[in-house]
């Protein structure tokens, strides 16, 4: 029956259609479709030159130095490391994450130096970094990217962009314009404090005796649902040794990697993970302000690194250490730098993976084909 009806309806119109002007209706349809397309294009960042996106931010970072296809856009030089993490009951009391309960969680990591030059001199980099990927037996992951500086130089994404822009070399001198750098310092107290840290903090002799700070705030969620705003740091078990300017000037290009390999030959290199709990009134969302030193600290676990590989062909090379890849029991905060890092890391990862895949990254991908 219904089949008959459909066929009949398709063949002959019921009644003559009322007259109407199609042009106005067509204009309305074009208006609706146009509005949808415009909204899409604006959100994609294709319209509006002044809008900062993950793409324009990554472009700005790329403009601060020479192009090195296939390498990370920041902290480009480093090595892959691996080992284990042993969580503590104190950590487990604060967070329900499996990582604090499982015995010997396998860890893949990366030790690196700041800056975008994958061939830079290890000992001349003021900033050193450690990135970790902890995978528990339930498949959940915790990725973190930490730095040797104790607080971030700027409080917001806009300031981060301004600071990055100020670091673009002046074509005339090949170096960043000192006046622009000074303007950033004048505008942001934290940038001045960062400069002070860079000038006065003693340099250590190794990746192994350096502190690494998560800097951004996160939330630890306990089994009972209680939450704490936290920041974490890895503090070396090995004793601090200062490295003088003279020693740094004489050190080889790959000083840190060579030195770390020697240490590993003697046995595992260890750090303790210290989790600091925010106190009343501490600014959770501003990574440029360090929390006071008297805040409650908990030793949440110990990291033992046992092996090292070059990054070319190494297991860490194709990992995006997005600081917002977190297991249940750990969550992000509204810290704007945290979201911006996640966005820019993803864009940087996509660009370098594309370069490696298309054969544009000959030195970065060395060993990739062999794998």
């Amino acid at each position: 029956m219904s089949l008959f009806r459909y066929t009949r309806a398709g063949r002959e119109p019921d009644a003559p259609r009322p007259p109407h002007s199609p042009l106005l209706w067509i204009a309305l349809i074009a208006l609706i479709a146009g509005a949808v397309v415009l909204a899409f294009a604006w959100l994609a960042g294709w319209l509006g030159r002044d809008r900062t996106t993950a793409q324009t931010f990554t472009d700005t970072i790329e403009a601060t130095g020479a192009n090195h296809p296939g390498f990370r856009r920041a902290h480009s030089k480093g090595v892959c490391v691996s080992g284990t993490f042993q969580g503590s009951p104190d950590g487990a009391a604060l967070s329900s994450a499996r990582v604090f309960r499982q015995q010997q969680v396998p860890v893949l990591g990366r030790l690196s130096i700041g800056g975008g030059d994958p061939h830079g001199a290890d000992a001349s980099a003021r900033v050193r970094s450690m990135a970790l990927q902890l995978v528990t037996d339930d498949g959940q992951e915790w990725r973190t990217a930490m730095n040797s500086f104790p607080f971030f130089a700027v409080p917001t994404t806009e300031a981060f962009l301004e600071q990055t822009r100020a670091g673009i070399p002046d074509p005339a001198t090949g170096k960043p314009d000192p006046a622009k750098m000074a303007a950033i310092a004048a505008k942001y107290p934290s940038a001045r404090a960062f400069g002070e840290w860079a000038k006065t903090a003693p340099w250590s002799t190794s990746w192994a005796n350096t502190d690494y700070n998560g800097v951004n705030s996160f939330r630890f969620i306990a089994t009972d649902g209680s939450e704490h705003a936290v920041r974490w740091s890895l503090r070396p078990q090995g004793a601090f040794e200062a490295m003088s300017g003279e020693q740094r000037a004489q050190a080889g290009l790959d000083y840190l990697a060579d030195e770390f390999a020697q240490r590993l030959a003697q046995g595992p290199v260890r750090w303790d993970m210290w989790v600091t709990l925010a106190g009343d009134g501490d600014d959770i969302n501003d990574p440029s302000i360090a929390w006071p030193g008297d805040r409650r600290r908990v030793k949440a676990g110990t990291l033992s690194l046992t092996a090292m590989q070059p990054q070319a062909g190494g297991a860490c090379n194709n990992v995006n250490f997005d600081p917002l890849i977190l297991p249940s029991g750990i969550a992000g905060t509204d810290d704007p730098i945290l979201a911006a890092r996640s966005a820019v890391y993803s864009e940087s990862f996509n660009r370098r993976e594309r370069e490696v895949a298309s054969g544009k990254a000959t030195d970065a991908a060395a060993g990739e084909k062999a794998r």
Partner: protein
Amino acid sequence: MSRDIGHFNLTARVLHWLMAVLILTMLFVGVTMVASLHWRPMLVDLHRPLGIAILLLAVVRLVNRLRHRPPPLPADLPAWQVFAAHASHWVLYGLMLAMPLVGWAMLSAGGYPIQMWKGVLLPPILPHDVAVYAALRGAHSVLAYVLFATVVLHLSAALFHLWVRRDGVFQAMARGRKDH
């Protein structure tokens, strides 16, 4: 009054309008999260489970479509519009199934955990591989633009049927039969 050419069954109509909202949301979420320096974490957490939901709904929809013939197009529809209607529906069905699968495969090849919500992960469907990731990541964007363009054309064509041709094609999806 528009003509009555018959109607899609209730399942088809519910799935159509639900997925229209989900897919359009998904396209805007996707394009926003890739560009935004602020909204990415929140949107990416929405994007993955929404994508899998669309995949599951698309499978149900495909089965329903194969089991229930849709109403015919009006006999007086020009041949090129008939072709456009058929081609765009192939593209829409193909992409509503392919986009979530490409996304899932892409995250697998990128070495990312595929989190639905906290503590619930999907298994990877491909090994971690740079070249495969790069290809799929590119494909996910290109296919998203193709899907978006097709959705906009589909919407425009639907409104054209509703307001200009007034031939019952829009009503076939908008409501059921009035006479029982």
